[in-house]
């Protein structure tokens, strides 16, 4: 009969032993249970230890049985697998380079093969980068063989071969390296050793759109951080046949260690030519370790909620980010919010890692992917992101009596603080920059800072083609300040909407400004004052934050773009739709000493 005095619910060795000792109090045969040297005490130690281990084991079993409480990675991955969630593998660091080949003859084309390798060294350690596709370079008008913006990916290229044995019903195709970047995985199925027509099969995350003739494979997490390749059963995906040879080629990534590499050397030669100059466009970045346990816990359950269908904004974001891993930021909104409205469409805007804009082919890929999963009559449309720059103007007062820092040092600290705040809060879609919080960050940047006044100016950049009439719609996405000048003169001398200078109609030093009545003009700053050159070149909708520039033609402008500035009404600047709020990294900071 169970003794209610004996509690075995404790998880701690000492507590279990205390319970047993309490139980022993109920008998008089062996009284030395609480003296350390006694035999019965030793026996209680053994019993307690056994109970403790049992409790620990059962506790672990219970923990590992649920996604939320599992601690072993294999358990977490196993739970994720049941939710059809593929944990993110390592990602290769990616760099973009320009290749310039100077051959000693004049070939019509030079072929750069897939997996052409380059090396780089970071902190005395050598890393290998390679191309993930082959391409050809033709001679340009100057006789140069140049390829621009070539992506190269870090990682040793590994090829593994498996022979299908249909007699082995438990056969699995587990790839040996947990360091794999699954995005790089290419699988070919060769009919037999004598066959040379090895077709490349495509990777699928779901069974949507595939049938028994689809040459498709799936990647699934396996034990010990590895991944395995799985094939269809002849109904959903083509089945592999006996003696087929499976060739899996992938990169073994070093994670983020090679990030920031920007000097590359060709390994060997390209089609026999070794005089190759490699100029980096962007240094290596984007390398990462496998998805963390915490992230898998969070995303696996979300993945189940979505069930590979895009209905809500969150569905689109999660599925597209999961499938296209080169996406840095994404936003999705209904076409009715577009200007002009596009009913029946879902607008997807993405910012790719280390890329300016998004290539048309990538847009089509994303649209096709989303269309398969979207409800009927909904058409996904991918649009380029627009950048809305924020220029920060700050006046900072500090007490020189409590610091040994100079004005310039304070200025640097404040600049770093503004950058840290904006990095953490904006540079993404759907973000807000609150002036009060930015001011608080500046105030906290150094104990000597007394207070700060912060204002922001919004900036859009247009790049007109020279001597060509063009129309621009600038979306500031925030209500703009409006001031009606008195006798043509603004209070502080400048209009709320201004711009950098350009040449208009042969006149240099021209710029845009608004007249306070919703009209955009072109003015010139002359020695006799501001002179209006064009009374109406566009319109301004202050409430919606829209500036239209119509039929504008310029012959020259300073810098790489014309920068059009506008003053927002609110001290909270926000962005929506396809607009990324971006920090202009050159803030105007004025330092004022105030001794107290």
């Amino acid at each position, binding site marked *: 009969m169970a003794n209610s005095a004996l509690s075995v619910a404790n998880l701690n*060795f*000492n507590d279990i032993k205390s319970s047993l000792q309490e139980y022993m109090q109920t008998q*008089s*045969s*062996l*009284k*030395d249970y609480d*003296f*350390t*040297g*006694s*035999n*019965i005490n*030793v026996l209680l*130690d*053994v019993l*307690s*230890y056994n109970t*403790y281990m049992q409790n620990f084991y059962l506790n672990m079993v219970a923990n590992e049985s649920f996604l939320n409480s599992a601690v072993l990675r294999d358990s977490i991955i196993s739970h994720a697998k049941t939710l059809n969630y593929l944990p993110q593998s390592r990602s290769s660091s990616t760099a973009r380079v320009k290749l310039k080949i100077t051959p000693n003859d004049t070939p019509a084309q030079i072929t750069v093969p897939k997996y052409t390798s380059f090396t780089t060294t970071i902190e005395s350690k050598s890393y290998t980068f390679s191309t993930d596709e082959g391409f050809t370079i033709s001679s340009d008008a100057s006789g140069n063989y140049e390829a621009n913006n070539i992506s190269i990916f870090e990682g040793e290229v590994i090829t593994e071969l498996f022979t299908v044995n249909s007699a082995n019903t438990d056969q699995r195709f587990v790839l040996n390296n947990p360091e794999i970047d699954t995005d790089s995985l290419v699988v070919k199925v060769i009919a037999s050793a004598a066959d040379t027509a090895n077709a490349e099969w495509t990777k699928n995350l779901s069974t949507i759109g595939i049938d028994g003739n689809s040459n498709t494979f799936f990647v699934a997490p396996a034990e010990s951080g590895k991944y395995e390749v799985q094939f269809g059963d002849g109904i959903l995906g083509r089945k592999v046949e006996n003696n087929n040879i499976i060739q899996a080629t992938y990169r073994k990534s070093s994670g983020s260690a090679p990030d920031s590499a920007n000097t590359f050397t060709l390994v060997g030669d390209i089609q026999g030519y070794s005089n190759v100059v490699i100029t980096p466009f962007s240094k290596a970045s984007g390398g990462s370790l496998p998805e963390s346990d915490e992230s898998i816990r969070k995303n696996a359950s979300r993945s189940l909620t979505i069930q590979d269908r895009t209905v809500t904004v969150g569905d689109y974001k999660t599925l597209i980010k999961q499938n296209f891993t080169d996406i840095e930021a994404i936003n999705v909104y209904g076409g009715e919010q577009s200007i002009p409205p596009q009913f029946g469409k879902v607008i997807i805007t993405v910012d790719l890692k280390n890329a300016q804009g998004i290539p048309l082919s990538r847009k089509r890929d994303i649209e096709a992917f989303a269309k398969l999963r979207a409800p009927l009559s909904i058409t996904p449309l991918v649009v380029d992101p627009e950048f809305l720059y924020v220029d920060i103007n700050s006046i900072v007062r500090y007490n020189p009596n409590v610091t040994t820092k100079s004005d310039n040092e304070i200025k640097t600290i404040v600049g770093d603080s503004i950058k840290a705040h904006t990095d953490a809060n904006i540079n993404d879609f759907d973000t807000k920059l609150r002036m009060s919080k930015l001011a608080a960050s500046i105030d906290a940047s150094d104990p000597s800072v007394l207070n700060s006044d912060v204002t922001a100016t919004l900036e859009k950049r247009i790049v007109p083609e020279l001597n060509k009439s063009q129309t621009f719609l600038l979306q500031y996405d925030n209500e703009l300040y409006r001031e009606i000048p008195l006798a043509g003169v603004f209070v502080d001398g400048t209009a709320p909407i201004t711009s950098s200078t350009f040449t208009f109609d042969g006149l240099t030093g021209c710029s845009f400004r608004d007249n306070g009545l919703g009209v955009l003009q072109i003015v010139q700053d002359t020695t006799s004052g501001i002179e209006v050159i064009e009374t109406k070149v566009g319109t301004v909708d202050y409430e919606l934050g829209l500036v239209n520039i119509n039929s504008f033609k310029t012959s020259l402008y300073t810098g790489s773009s014309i920068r059009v500035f506008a003053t927002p009404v609110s001290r909270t600047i926000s962005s929506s739709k396809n607009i990324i709020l971006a920090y202009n990294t050159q803030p105007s900071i004025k330092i004022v000493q105030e001794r107290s």
Partner: protein
Amino acid sequence: MSVFSDFNTSFANHPVKKDLSVKTDANAVKQSIRNLILTDRGERLMQPSVGSKIRSILFENFTPQTALLAKQYIKETFDNFEPRAELINIDVSPDPDNNSMLIGIEFAIINIEEPQTLNLQIERIG
């Protein structure tokens, strides 16, 4: 009625009752002291501080310090783990030729008038 009682280390049966044989009072305490002295530190499950370090000195060369160390270790063990007994005297006789040590412990048990003696021979085997 005995005050202290513990089962025998040998798990021997009682010759008549065939029950587990039990040591009581002074014998139980002696058995406990013997267990404590012969238990090495770290040997007891989850209780690494229980026991004495006397075995470790068997692996050292015998010097005049060795006997002093042995006495100190035995005293520490008494003080820390055996509240039923009060140490009176310890006599340690090293027998270096046989790699062993003869230990004589004289102690008093609470509630028992006459002093008790426990003799142990500990030796290095192998």
